[in-house]
């Protein structure tokens, strides 16, 4: 939503952009959240928006760890899931005791659930960063996910625990039965959480988190304990993940052990990393894209998860800054007015790259549908998976696309170097 997480750029932007631009972004986001369901009012799109909203909170909370503090977690779904379970139990308790607590407060309960678990295990987990933290988070994740199947009275075993969101006290005449009301509830929490998490990056704690990520030793020398900083970051991340979990519980009216599992942890990692962890708005892009693809691809292909894996590997290898990183790389060029010199080389490179991508898709679908299934519909052309012509087309696209793309990307690199040199001369690029 805004493009300034790193201190130096943030400070520079504050001076140049001013308060109007800063608040304008958030105002725009709020208006968009309100208006979206009025434009796309079908049931399917409402469900999608709700899921995307939850994914945004979840991915942003993950980025407190990965992007801000440099902690790679493979078990972030634990806090999310526990938040969801606590929210479901809270909803059932509120409904059965007729407490005067309205539904919009419930996500906060989920947040407290995530926070409580982070409080409990965080101190041990955050002793060390890096690979060890990654391993512990994986271990804790597996531990909680497997335990949830044993503690049946709390987690409801395989089937999970259900609830009824309409059984709570209505608020302003809203029962939260229709999806549109749930959407606005989620949208409200998305905005509040996103503002809170953005504000967190601007506090001294947020800044010292960045410092711990970049150089923990120096942080110790200036009198902070990196362990405490990591612990605090872990708790904040747990809190917001819990809010996302609580919203999921409200949205689906169920919590089950899949919420806690490795798949969920993997998807939040994908969202945050594909979007880009170096900028605050990166995970938002990632969450929107990943959720949208997840919803859209399932109806098109049976191997949609493989495409995620490939996109993820591609991003890790060729653009570790994610989508946000790619976008922000162009900022100095736009300012220096040299972007125009790069665009032709992009257009040239786009054609073979696209051919290569189509080759990958055709190959995957050929393998996936070899033993039967619908013909592959690629750009409106039907391909039959068992036909040798399809294999030949796939091979030509794959190999030819790769070889030509390699040459054209060299051209992009040269054009980029020239543009960057000009930008550097004009003082827009360090």
């Amino acid at each position, binding site marked *: 939503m805004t493009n300034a997480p790193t201190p130096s750029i943030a400070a520079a932007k504050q001076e140049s952009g001013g308060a109007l631009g800063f608040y304008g972004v958030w105002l725009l986001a709020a208006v968009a959240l309100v208006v979206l369901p009025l434009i796309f009012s079908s049931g399917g799109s409402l469900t999608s928006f709700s899921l995307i909203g939850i994914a945004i909170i979840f991915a942003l909370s993950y980025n407190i760890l990965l992007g801000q503090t440099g902690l790679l977690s493979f078990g972030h779904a634990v806090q999310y899931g526990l938040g969801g379970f606590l929210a479901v139990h809270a909803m059932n308790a509120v409904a059965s005791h007729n407490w005067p607590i309205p539904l919009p407060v419930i996500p906060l309960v989920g947040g407290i659930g995530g926070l409580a678990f982070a409080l409990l295990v965080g101190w041990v987990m955050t002793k060390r960063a890096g690979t*060890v933290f990654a391993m512990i988070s994986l*271990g804790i994740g*597996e531990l909680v996910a497997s335990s949830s199947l044993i503690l049946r009275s709390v987690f409801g075993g395989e089937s999970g625990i259900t609830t009824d969101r309409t059984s709570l006290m209505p608020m302003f005449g809203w029962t939260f039965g229709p999806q549109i009301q749930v959407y606005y509830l989620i949208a409200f929490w998305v905005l509040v959480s996103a503002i809170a998490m953005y504000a967190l990056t601007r506090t001294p704690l947020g800044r010292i988190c960045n410092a711990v990520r970049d150089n923990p030793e120096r942080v110790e020398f200036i009198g902070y304990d990196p362990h405490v900083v990591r612990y605090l970051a872990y708790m904040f991340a747990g809190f917001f993940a819990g809010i996302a979990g609580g919203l999921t519980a409200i949205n689906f009216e169920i919590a089950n052990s899949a919420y806690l599992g490795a798949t969920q942890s993997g998807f939040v990692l994908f969202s945050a990393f594909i979007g880009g962890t170096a900028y605050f708005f990166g995970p938002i892009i990632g969450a929107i894209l990943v959720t949208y693809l997840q919803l859209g691809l399932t109806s098109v292909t049976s191997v949609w998860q493989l495409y995620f894996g490939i996109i993820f590997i591609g991003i890790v290898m060729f653009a570790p800054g994610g989508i946000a990183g790619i976008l922000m790389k162009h900022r100095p060029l736009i300012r220096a007015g040299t972007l125009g010199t790069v665009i032709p080389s992009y257009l040239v490179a786009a054609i073979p790259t696209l051919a290569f991508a189509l080759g990958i898709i055709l190959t995957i679908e050929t*393998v996936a549908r070899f033993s039967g299934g619908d013909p592959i519909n690629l750009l409106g052309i039907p391909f039959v998976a068992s036909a040798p012509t399809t294999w030949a087309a796939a091979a030509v696209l794959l190999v030819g696309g790769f070889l030509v793309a390699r040459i054209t990307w060299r051209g992009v690199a040269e054009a980029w170097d020239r543009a960057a040199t000009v930008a550097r001369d004009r003082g827009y690029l360090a």
Partner: protein
Amino acid sequence: MAELIVISTLNGVLFGMLLFLLSSGLTVIFSMMGVLNFAHASFYMLGAFFGYQLTRWIGFWPALVIAPLLVGAVGMAVERYGLRNTHKHGHVAELLLTFGLAFAIEEIVSMIWGKSPVDYRVPAVLDFPAFTVFSTNYPAYKIFMLVVSVVIFIALLVTLKRTRVGLIVQAALTHPSMVGHLGHNVGRVFMLVFGVGSALAGLAGVIAGPSLVTQSDMAALLGPILFVVIVFGGLGSLPGAFIASLLIGLIQTFAVALNGSLASVFGPLDPSLGASPLTDIWNVTIAQIAPILPYLLLVLVLIFRPMGLLGTRES
């Protein structure tokens, strides 16, 4: 009871040796390159599926040799074209690359061979009971698995400790840049070690496939346990990995075999609390908590001895 102990010990040692086939490669790769290879268990799975496919085409014995070599080749390609290019982006990127690979390999395997278990059978030559302990027939194939893993273990030990290649590998573990200065191609050593580690994982897959279930989720099931083993043994320590493999193999096997619960031991003292978490814990059997035991161990080790059993460094 004596029967249970003998059989479970045999099975536990067997599972432990299988774990060591995997964890040895993983821990050597980690100490050399600083990369925890998430895809290591995926290579094990690839080994099992290649073994299955090759067994159907050309028989078990050629598959036993060719499948690990294929997996080793895949591993070397991953190192050469994946990890080496990602190295400049740092360890997190490398870890994430292997994570993405593990994800993609699982999807590819389930795309080609389906999500249900494949019919990967014990070869007919080895399909007979080796001996009978008390009343249980112990299958010859399990003895074969044990022999193969012990032979590999000894071969690995001799190669590392007694040959020139092993010497260079050992030196590259601790002082990669010095080895480079002495004129060895460290990049090639890395690629070789990664390939051999993957091939060992593949071999473990080929021999474990018929005995365990060959299915597309076998990597996801074994992978986390593998990490427990190498963290428990001490990151980068081969003897530690060996002890931890056997220990976790034995613990897992014994836990699965035991059926006791708090309720069965202290039956008359049943507090009858109704449906509550306490009742769940009261009634859960040891066999049911077997899957979470490794992770409990991991958490305990990280709290009380963060460097692991025989590890020397903290991270």
